[in-house]
């Protein structure tokens, strides 16, 4: 009996891998996730049309236009400071949510929780460090962003109001940092906040009332801790996200970032 000879060469490992990749990328599930033009879609080629689709057909379209001014992508113009402030906010949100799992805002438990977090929770110390240093970095980057915008004259018409929102965002960043400062409930936190809120008490007419409301009493204590915790993890982030949304939206509505000089 004649043997049937199969002349086709055996597929190599590379061929098999390519086929597997094609099968995955060609599957219905895959193409339902990545919209046309996505760089992860099967057969993506680098063409002007696809470059447009990468933005236009993705959630990034809420943040970025399809095209930006050529000078706007120069790192030496923006130093990425606005974008980095936003990125640090996201980083702080992620690390902050992690910390919330291990923290109870009462004067009896707060310090012990942080102490336990550092010694007994996997990556607890690292995440707390990242949250703290990230917060200081964010204050710095927001501040430098403001200086950059000023020196470029980028607050001039039509961007006046976006500058005002930016100043509000700077204040909110400082408040977020300041409210977070109290939460470890150590001597540093307690006395830094004491000094800070004493300054607030000097405001005319409303000073003492504002201080009373913020501290939840005449002196810093357990009530203050709860109050500032809620401000720090819920109210201020909520407010700052709204202002950030308006800020980013206005950047685009005012014709992209300013310049060139």
């Amino acid at each position: 009996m004649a043997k049937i000879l199969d002349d086709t060469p055996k597929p190599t490992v590379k061929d098999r891998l390519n086929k597997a990749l094609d099968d995955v990328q060609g599957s219905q599930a895959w193409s339902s996730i990545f919209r046309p033009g996505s760089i992860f879609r099967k057969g993506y080629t680098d063409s002007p049309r696809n470059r447009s689709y990468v933005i236009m057909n993705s959630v990034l379209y809420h943040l970025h236009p399809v095209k930006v001014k050529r000078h706007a992508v120069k790192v030496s113009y923006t130093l990425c400071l606005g974008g980095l402030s936003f990125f640090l906010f996201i980083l702080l949100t992620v690390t902050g949510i992690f910390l919330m799992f291990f923290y109870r805002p009462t004067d009896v438990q707060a310090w012990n929780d942080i102490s336990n977090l550092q010694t007994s929770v996997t990556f607890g110390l690292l995440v707390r460090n990242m949250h703290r240093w990230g917060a200081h970095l964010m204050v710095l980057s927001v501040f430098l962003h403001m200086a950059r915008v000023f020196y470029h004259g980028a607050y001039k018409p039509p961007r006046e109001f976006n500058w005002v929102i930016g100043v509000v965002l700077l204040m909110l960043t400082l408040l977020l940092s300041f409210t977070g400062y109290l939460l470890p409930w150590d001597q540093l936190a307690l006395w830094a906040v004491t000094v800070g809120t004493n300054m607030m008490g000097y405001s005319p007419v409303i000073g003492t009332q504002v201080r009373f409301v913020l501290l939840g009493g005449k002196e810093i204590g357990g009530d203050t801790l709860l109050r500032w915790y809620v401000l720090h993890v819920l109210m201020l982030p909520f407010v700052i996200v709204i202002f950030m949304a308006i800020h980013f939206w206005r950047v685009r509505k005012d014709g992209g970032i300013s310049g060139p000089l």
Partner: protein
Amino acid sequence: MTEIPEHLLKRAQAAREKAAAESGASEAAAAAPAGGASDEAAADPRIPAHLLERSKARKAQSESSGGGGVAVQEKVASVVTAAPAGGGVPVGAGPGGHTQRLLTVVKSGSIQDVKASPVDKVHTWPHLLAAEFVAALACLSFTFFFSIFVNAPLLEEANINKTPNPSKAPWYFLGLQELLTMFHPMVAGVTIPGVGLVALILAPYIDKNPSNKPEDRKFATSLMTVHLMFWAVLVIIGSFFRGPGFNFTLPWRDGIFFEL
């Protein structure tokens, strides 16, 4: 049936009359022989004299430099003039045997109002997104590695009865705390920062200078630099040059009394 507005009817009537008059005129023109085209073209009244002059000058220039020619009226006339096939005017040919006519010269901006001049733009992907991604990654890795090597401070548990010496506010408020040593609390804690903040918010409405060129904004730039330096110096003094009792110290002599 819809009623046709009176002014439209009038306009249509006028157009019809005009068309009738013109068709009479063109019949008369068609009767004229098509010869002598180039003579006619040279003095063609439909092309404004200054445009002809300009195109002639360009032609002379390009010929002397040997570059590519510009289609000039004379040339067109000599080339395009169709040899009358049967003595009559070829189908589709205009007056003088031209197959193309200059109908009108539209100056730029007379019909379209060009408001925005084209801007040099690049695609967000990959140019902007790649830069943002790298910046975010660099920022993340800096924070990550810094956090591995430097621990956030955690002093002993808060004790309301034990005041540390010195007691300092967070670093971004140390400028204010520094001011408190110099002025009445009302001035240092409210007036100065309040005025600073209001001035900052109102900056775009105070600064009427429309230019964003650094050379046109020397005053604004100087003022902002003085403002920023004012706070930066105060923060640095408050952070590193204030020791027990918030008295002045030298960090290299007495050490640093500062926790981040």
